[in-house]
């Protein structure tokens, strides 16, 4: 009894919800194409001049470069360390699934603001100067639990059985890891890495608090926002959004194709 007519209100409702969620982002993107200086109606674009302004702004380009470096390197560490943690934990039978769930999800619920404050105190205490390195360490702290949770969820009974089969056929532990476990978990490793990249790419508060001269793009946007919203800030914002959105789409696509082939 799947009547199209009966479904119409439901379709309408889902569309409305999506409109509500994406409206702010859509407005942001729209006004980045505004011709005049003020991002208020009426819209008088489209104009690409604010995008041109960004790309000819050296500070902005530096920040973009920093963002990419921090995102890629910290994500590689997050995925690698998360994999090792998941691989270690998967060797045990934990007393209760609830404890396990707690271990996996607890770090994900700690606020970035709190982590930022904690990192700041820690770096002060050990006299570590603020730099891209400290931002990177901060991003590993927030992304590794995520990678850990994703990778652990893929290490089920079947994975354990396949590893057992490899051992049964004469493989040593390192051969099991290199020839079986890592190749089998490749899609999950890939997904963890790219998700970490998107989270690192648009993380603001940690990057702001543990950086000084070398800053990432979100921090640069923040300082621009001090002079108020204008189409240039919107253009940078849209760019940040576009990159992270594209990464998620590409990720979905590649991981999905990997699983089918």
């Amino acid at each position: 009894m799947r009547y199209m007519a009966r479904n119409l209100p439901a379709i309408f409702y889902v569309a409305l919800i999506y409109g509500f969620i994406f409206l702010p982002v859509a407005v942001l993107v729209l006004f980045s194409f505004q011709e005049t200086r003020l991002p208020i109606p009426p819209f008088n674009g489209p104009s690409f001049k604010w995008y041109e302004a960004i790309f000819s702004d050296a500070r902005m380009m530096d920040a973009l470069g920093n963002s990419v470096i921090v995102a890629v390197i910290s994500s590689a560490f997050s995925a690698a360390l998360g994999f090792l943690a998941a691989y270690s934990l998967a060797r045990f039978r934990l007393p209760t699934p609830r404890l396990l769930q707690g271990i996996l999800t607890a770090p994900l619920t700690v606020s970035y603001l709190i982590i930022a404050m904690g990192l700041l105190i820690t770096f002060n205490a050990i006299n570590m100067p603020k730099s891209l390195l400290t931002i990177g360490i901060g991003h590993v702290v927030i992304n590794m639990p995520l990678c850990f949770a994703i990778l652990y969820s893929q290490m089920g009974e079947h994975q354990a059985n396949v590893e057992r089969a490899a051992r049964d056929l004469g493989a040593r532990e390192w051969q099991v890891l290199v020839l079986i476990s890592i190749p089998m978990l490749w899609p999950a490793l890939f997904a963890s890495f790219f998700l970490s990249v998107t989270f690192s790419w648009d993380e603001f508060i940690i990057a702001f608090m543990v950086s000084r001269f070398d800053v990432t793009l979100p921090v640069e946007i923040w300082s621009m926002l001090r002079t108020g919203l204008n189409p240039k800030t919107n253009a940078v914002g849209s760019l940040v959004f576009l990159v992270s959105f594209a990464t998620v789409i590409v990720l979905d696509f590649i991981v999905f194709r990997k699983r089918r082939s």
Partner: protein
Amino acid sequence: MTTPTVEFRNITMKFGDKVAVQDINLSIKSGAFVVLLGPSGGGKTTLLNILGGFLEPTAGQVLVNGHDVTHTPSSKRPTTTVFQDYALFPHMSIAGNVAFGLKMRGVPKSRQNQLVEQALDMVGLTHTASRRIHELSGGQRQRIALARALVVEPSVLLLDEPLGALDMKLRRQMQEELKSIQKRVGTTFIHVTHDQEEAMAIADEIVVMNDGFIEDIGAPERIYLEPASLFTANFMGENNIIEGRIIDRKEGDSGTQCLTVNTPLGQIPVNCVTPPEVSEIVLSIRPEHLHTGEPENGHVTLGVATVMDSGFFGTHHQCTVHLGETDTTLKVRLSQKDMVSAGDVVKLSADPGDFVALFR
């Protein structure tokens, strides 16, 4: 006496407080197709895992070809396993899967190719060599798992409910195939299942396990027709269990004793090799051993029964009958063309040789 291929000596396995197998002693001779049969939780998979090197027993020793392997890791044992979920390597081709064990043993590449081709040929899947796992059907995966485990020429092949995931038709077909491959290669197969029909169809020897103990060991015919324990009698197919009391013991032919057992169905003479000391025993008789109509020569009559219900199962009818006088309900298997229906009254008889006396 030749060395048994596998020997379990006083094997006990505990998981925390739970005892999975208790003080098992079992020898398996070379080239046998042995089935470990029992309900889940009976200890059969635990025993297989101890032999495969995936579990270390709490106590006891495991010997393969006379060598103690109790503490040898699975990678160094002359055993390989076909897992229930096949555990194939999803990121490798079929040929890559089959070659894996050879590669780990450092077999030269050209020899590898040759052996892989032979193994794929054996399971009739040569044409799939370059395919990927997910392109295969369940039955094909099962065959690849078999080829992968056999190509390294293990002393013993362990099969952990390998047909559990297949549907009935494919299952019966794979049973025949397993049996014929085992005959051809001559490797000792140890096969775990909870399906008694599967066990009877493929085994040279069945080991019935329950609750961590071995209930019975023997050829399928012996286990089915003369079960050694009440558990075995009930687990292997359908059965009628009748309580009785020994009222007379006589020496019979060839060392057996002939017992006379008083039951609700009358006095029944039963032959028995090792008669019990107690007098309270049970008799088992299979539904297909109860006959209706005029008793044949030498059969004992069991009384007049009313048919409660009757179901058609293709090759036979299965009925429940009730003997009013003694308030006994029995299952009776009638032939395909016997038409009885609820309410019919039948005379029951049986060959006394078909009764089996059980005391444990």
